């Protein structure tokens, strides 16, 4: 017997059903096969992160609707009984809470959603072989109710989880032992739980300690208790997971009265974990891997449902496109690389990060690291950056950053800024990979001046016909490094006995110093008069900040502006230095400083308005942070500065050969003000008259 479908999906877990659902919605003819009859159980923590919740809502899943919202992740240190609470990373849709839905319910629900959308579902169907023809996969051979059948399909989607043999046959064997782990779980009762995900470190003791964690998640009447680990970069050894789990239960019972009477109500079941998502190995002629089969698991937390749902949606997009055109599935790899740009790097940091948190038990392990700046009253980039790092997702741009607005005015300028920031990340990565990941996140900041120095260098080099693009790039990189170093050093927060913040501050100081060192390294490749001018700017930046920090009473009262603005002088010095570097006269250089200073002040003020009215995710600043003045006053100042800069442009010395590049950056400032105005719903009438000449 043989059948024909556009797409056959092997496995009816979240990844498979998501793929089928999104394809069926687009009118594609989809068959999902699974060896089980649904509903069925699955080894999982049953926890759905905010990202998974969003993806499920997009599929209209009903099972999440009634499930209780879990706002907190509580991380326990079993070695000393301390804990720390952490929130989940908020999604772009604004979801902040996780939910718990047992997989037996969730997978059944998703299966029904796919069928309701028009997909065909064959339970109790075992795939016996891939149908390979002409060098590609053209469907599968299955055994359904004991009858052999051939299912032909233009695309075969493998969603059989991490242990499946079809996926392995297609992608080849695992390359790194560090990419493999295992997890076990069971249900239990007679436990008092709070409405939070509880996670426990360390797992194992002494030399038997492993890079993993135990968990207790509330699941209605019962709890889901489990443990999992990755081999990481630990020396090769046999790990007895059941023994590890038994020890975990003993430790749990001893840890708290809440768990003393814990009674298991289901058998302990286990499954392998595979990280190591490699986009190029996830597709081929007529086939795709999604979810766990693709290695789509968070390398730190081992969360997999969000990845399953997201990779399913990405696969459906790519397949739909391919069916309409040339049947090539390369768009899928591009989609994966875009969605998880750091996955490959992350899995190498993972053991390192884990080793770090595991050893520093004062840091309450992962929790303190993730939540380490939770107590940062003044905000700071480290907590969100680390949490983001652990979330293994591409950062989002607000569209309000300096770089975004300059890029909108001129592709060339945008390209230069990007190249400078990418180059800087690469240089920092070579010294300290974690810092480069933090910076990757920080650079999406809406309020910081990141990108402005590079914009100044780009425009001045062009305007003055500079002939050394490499020196210009090094200057821009040094300036950007300083802005980043200062940003991190300026967010080191005050301490108190209740909030010692030792790790938050230590890391911020070390990372800030490291970036400063990198800055000096780049800077000192330039001629000394240029460097001298820049160092005067950096001295002034620290001086202004110090004077303000000495008067904490100014913090929320008479304070004139945020730390971000301190770098305005440096940026202006950078504009002047770029002109000198391009061979301009002292007169031109002085004019460049005046022009740059007006624009930098404008951007600093816009940054303050953004921080005050919208907040800044990348710096962990909530909105409504006061700088002692009304946002509209600051906004008007920004506009005034930008207009002055535009006026200065008309007075540019004749030696400036190409003022067009300077106009680009000047316009970009107005563009940023306009964008911000529309974000805030302010009357664009402010700009209707345009810049006064």
């Amino acid at each position, binding site marked *: 017997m043989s059948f024909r479908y556009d797409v056959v999906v092997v496995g009816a877990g979240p990844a498979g059903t998501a793929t089928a659902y999104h394809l069926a919605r687009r009118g594609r003819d989809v068959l999902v096969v699974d060896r089980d009859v649904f509903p069925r159980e699955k080894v999982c923590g049953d926890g759905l992160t905010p990202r998974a919740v969003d993806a499920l809502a997009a599929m209209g899943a009903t099972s999440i609707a009634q499930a209780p919202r879990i706002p907190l992740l509580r991380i326990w240190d079993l070695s000393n009984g301390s804990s720390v609470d952490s929130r989940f990373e908020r999604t772009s849709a604004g979801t902040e809470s996780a939910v718990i839905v047992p997989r037996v319910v969730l997978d059944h629900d998703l299966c029904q959603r796919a069928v309701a959308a028009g997909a065909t579902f064959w339970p109790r169907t075992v795939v016996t072989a891939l149908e390979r023809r002409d060098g590609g996969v053209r469907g599968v051979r299955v055994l359904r109710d004991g009858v052999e059948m051939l299912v032909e399909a233009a695309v075969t989607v493998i969603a059989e989880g991490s242990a499946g043999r079809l996926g392995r046959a297609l992608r080849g064997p695992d390359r790194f032992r560090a990419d493999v782990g295992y997890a076990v779980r069971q249900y239990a009762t007679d436990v008092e739980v709070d409405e939070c995900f509880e996670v426990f470190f360390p797992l194992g003791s002494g030399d038997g300690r492993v890079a993993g964690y135990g968990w207790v998640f509330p699941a209605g009447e019962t709890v889901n208790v489990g443990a999992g680990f990755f081999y990481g970069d630990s020396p090769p050894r046999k790990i007895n997971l059941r023994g590890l789990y038994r020890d975990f239960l003993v430790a749990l019972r001893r840890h708290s009265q809440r768990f003393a009477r814990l009674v298991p109500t289901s058998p302990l079941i286990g499954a392998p974990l595979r990280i190591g998502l490699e986009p190029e190995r996830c597709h081929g002629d007529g086939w795709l891997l999604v979810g766990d089969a693709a290695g789509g698991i968070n390398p730190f937390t081992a969360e997999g449902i969000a990845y399953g749902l997201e990779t399913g949606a990405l696969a459906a997009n790519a397949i739909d496109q391919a069916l309409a055109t040339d049947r090539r599935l390369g768009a899928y790899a591009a989609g994966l690389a875009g969605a998880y740009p750091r996955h490959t790097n992350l899995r190498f940091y993972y053991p390192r990060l884990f080793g770090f948190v595991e050893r520093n038990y004062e840091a309450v392990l992962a929790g303190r690291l993730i939540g380490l700046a939770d107590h940062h009253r003044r905000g700071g980039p480290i907590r969100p950056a680390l949490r983001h790092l652990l979330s293994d997702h591409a950062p989002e741009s607000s569209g309000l950053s300096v770089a975004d607005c300059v890029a909108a005015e001129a592709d060339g300028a945008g390209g230069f800024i990007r190249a400078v920031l990418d180059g800087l990340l690469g240089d920092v990565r070579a*010294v300290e990979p974690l810092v480069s990941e933090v910076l990757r996140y920080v650079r999406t900041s809406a309020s910081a001046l990141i990108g402005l120095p590079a914009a100044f260098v780009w425009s001045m080099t062009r305007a003055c016909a500079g002939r050394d693009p490499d020196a210009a790039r090094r200057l821009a990189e040094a300036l950007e490094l300083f802005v980043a170093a200062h940003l991190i050093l300026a967010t*080191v927060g005050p301490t108190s006995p209740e909030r010692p913040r030792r790790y938050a501050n230590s890391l911020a*100081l070390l990372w800030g110093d*490291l970036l400063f060192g990198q800055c000096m390294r780049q800077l000192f490749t330039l001629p000394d008069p240029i460097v001298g001018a820049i160092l005067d700017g950096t001295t002034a930046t620290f001086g202004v900040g110090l*004077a303000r920090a*000495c008067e904490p009473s100014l913090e929320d009262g008479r304070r004139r502006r945020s730390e971000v603005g301190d770098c305005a002088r440096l940026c202006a010095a950078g504009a002047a230095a770029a002109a000198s570097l391009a061979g301009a006269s002292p007169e031109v250089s002085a004019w460049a400083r005046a022009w740059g200073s007006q624009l930098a002040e404008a951007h600093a003020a816009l940054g303050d308005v953004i921080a005050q009215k919208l907040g800044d995710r990348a710096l962990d600043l909530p909105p409504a942070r006061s700088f002692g003045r009304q946002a509209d006053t600051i906004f008007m100042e920004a506009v005034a500065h930008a207009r002055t800069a535009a006026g200065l442009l008309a007075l540019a010395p004749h030696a400036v050969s190409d003022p067009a590049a300077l106009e680009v950056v000047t316009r970009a400032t107005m563009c940023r003000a306009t964008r911000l105005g529309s974000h805030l719903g302010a009357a664009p009438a402010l700009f209707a008259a345009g810049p006064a000449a």
Partner: protein
Amino acid sequence: MTSEPSELRLVNDVDAFVLEQLAHHDPQVQRINAHLAAAPGKHIRAILVVLGSTYGDGTRTRDAVAAAAAVELLHLGSLVHDDVMDDADMRRGLPAVHRRWSVPVASLSGGYLCTRASSLVNALHDDRIRTEFGRTVTSVCSGQLMEIENGHNLELTEERYHATIERKTGALFAFAAFVGGAAGRAPEARTAALRAYGGAFGTLFQILDDILDVTGEAGPATKPAGNDLRRGTYTLPVLLALRAPVPAARELRALLGPTHHRAGDWLQRALALVRAAGGLEAALSEARRIGERAVSALAPLPGSSATRALRELVEARLAQACMGIGQP
């Protein structure tokens, strides 16, 4: 020391130079800077710079003082940040900046000091020095990061420990000796020798510091005994004690590490175990080997009073550690 090289008097000018560099128009900033300059340290790095400067043409004393001030400023900046990380109350007999003012002030003050140091280095107008300085700052930071990343790591290898202290401490000493020579216009062969000596001496300096941290005889001006151990920084005496094939090593291993509950006099016990397992003697003989390396690095230099002084620095430091351990 028998006869001090006359150039050493230049070290006395360094403090005044530093103070001059830290003058600031804002009274608040000026107060912080004055506080920092009020308690100069032992100038060991400045001494290296000044001794290094004797190997040139002898015409650049002002540059040597400026270079020494730059090194001291960079060191001071790193101390201000270190004290935040160590949660130290005092520095050089005065309240630490983060105690006297606040942590945010200490953060920016450290940055300010490093910036001033950079300006001084830039003003020496020497590309060799400028390049070397950029590398040095990065080295010091990455060494400190390595240290914090390896906190509570019982599996820390000796190689990794050496790599850490070569960056954390050795790099600035190497720069100090080098910049003295370079600022004094010494030829390449001599600055290279000075750099090698400085790196080895800095490493030795750190190991001996680590030994004195265990014996608690680092003097009242510094930290209490076992400060590193308490913070989970396992230094050479501890690592060597952990490797020793004796029962004390096993007991020490059980006492340290992340799963241990800290209680009672665990720190005193751990320090005693480091001694019992022979960690101090083993670290001292390692220090002696590095001391020999430092002295042999001096071979290309002429047999001047400065060279003798550099050799004596090594011997004096080793003698101090021997006394700490109670060895002849």
